[in-house]
């Protein structure tokens, strides 16, 4: 893994907006063929970190360097105004010139090739999510950034999509940055987990991170529904943290 090409590197990077630091002191690396996962509570700066990597946001501190030639992005939210008539095939081509074979191939991979001529506005949340992923992989990026890619997808679809993401990283041999809430997936397929809360709380292999006291503190002191779900996920193997969650 280590001899693989370094795609992007953040060194002590931070973004300062509206008189506060959204994130600060972020250092990380993504290499070719590697899946790096960012987890953290709402507002912890996961999307901000992704946007620094993608050069959407300029850093106010630190450095972003890298040799990724082609980056592709699956944003968390995307609203296409109804005034724009847009079919899936048009949407696939917005940032790169692809031929129909390339488009169909990647739509087949995400299982939505039948929707090629459908209006974007008529798709369900899950279908749209698959189209978003298909669009991102169609251009064969060397770095793929997925921000909560399984939202709006039902449970079975979620497993299929996570398997697909693993498949993409193998087939395209690209680096993947994944922003995820799902610890199951993180445990099984990611190479490196970064736990974020404005700064990097802890990082390492998935099995090490869930044992880290910082991680337990972060997900134990919050009470939101999603977070108690995490709690539940690692409760069965970490009964000793009952004192924190009360």
């Amino acid at each position: 893994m280590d001899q693989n090409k370094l795609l992007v590197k953040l060194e002590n990077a931070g973004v300062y907006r509206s008189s506060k630091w959204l994130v600060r002191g972020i250092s990380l690396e993504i290499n070719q063929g590697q899946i790096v996962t960012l987890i953290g509570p709402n507002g912890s700066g996961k999307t901000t970190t992704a946007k620094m990597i993608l050069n959407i946001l300029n850093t106010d501190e630190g450095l972003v360097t890298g040799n990724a030639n082609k980056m592709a992005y699956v944003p968390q939210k995307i609203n296409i105004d109804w005034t724009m008539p847009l079919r899936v095939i048009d949407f696939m081509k917005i940032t790169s010139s692809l031929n129909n074979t390339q488009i169909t191939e990647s739509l087949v991979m995400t299982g939505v090739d039948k929707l090629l001529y459908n209006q974007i506005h008529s798709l369900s949340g899950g279908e749209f999510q698959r189209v978003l992923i298909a669009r991102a992989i169609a251009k064969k990026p060397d770095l793929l950034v997925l921000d909560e890619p399984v939202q709006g997808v039902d449970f079975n679809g979620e497993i299929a999509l996570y398997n697909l993401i693993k498949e993409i990283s193998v087939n395209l041999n690209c680096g993947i940055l994944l922003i995820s809430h799902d610890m199951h997936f993180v445990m099984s397929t990611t190479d490196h987990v970064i736990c974020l809360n404005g700064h990097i709380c802890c990082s390492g292999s998935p099995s090490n991170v869930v044992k880290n006291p910082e991680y337990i503190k972060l997900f134990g002191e919050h009470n939101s529904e999603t977070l108690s779900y995490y709690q539940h996920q690692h409760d069965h193997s970490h009964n000793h943290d009952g004192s924190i969650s009360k």
Partner: protein
Amino acid sequence: MFDDFFMRALIAGIGIAIVTGPLGCLVIWRRLSYFGDTLSHSALLGVTLAYAFSINISLSVFIISGTVALLLLSLQKRTKLAGDSLLGLLAHSTLAIGLVLIGFLSSIRFDLMGLLFGDILAVTVEDIFIVWFGGLIILGILFYIWKSIFAATVNYDLAAAEGMKPDLSNFIFTLLLAGVIAISIKMIGALLITGLLLIPAATARSLSSNPRQMVIISILVGIISVILGLFSSLELNTASGPSIIVAALVLFILSLISFKRSGALQK
């Protein structure tokens, strides 16, 4: 052919409609109709200055509208004032300054109605040249940045992440908008230019299923509106700008009826 004032108006009007088609689509996709209004209101100030310093109207309007557009872009990043308030502030203050200045220039006889609503009698051979030459430049640049501006219209973050340079194309697009106002102010008038940007594009929306189709249909609708509007302006002795806009509105209403019947694209 150019001897007849009506032919001149027709040729200039069709030239304008070809340019407002694609720009109008972008204006409604990007929800910039009020932005367009602000630029065209400021155009009146440009016209007044053109008279005061005896320079070409289109050039003067382009400079003023372009300046206002760039001012808006930078103010939007700096002030806490909401976007629409900022637009209103600039729209009305530039309009007011223009009208105040007209008062000072009492030695020159102004056709205020003509400035605000357009005048077909005023179209000269030089104007035709300005419309078609300026229009070709605008379309050429738009064609060149289309991929980038379109990607930025669909989603800014996607465009930025995937190397489409959305900030640059936004900046250029804003200047193109000032350009189209500059070439069409004489025909359509300061108050109604946005109508020619919006209404044909809105008509095209209900008749199209992809972006390219919408651009082509909005050009066609614009051309038909210009022809219908100018003929009725001639027959009924009405101002050219409002006549064109009314014709566009009639086409829009017709498109809604056919749209409902086919039911192809339910909201």
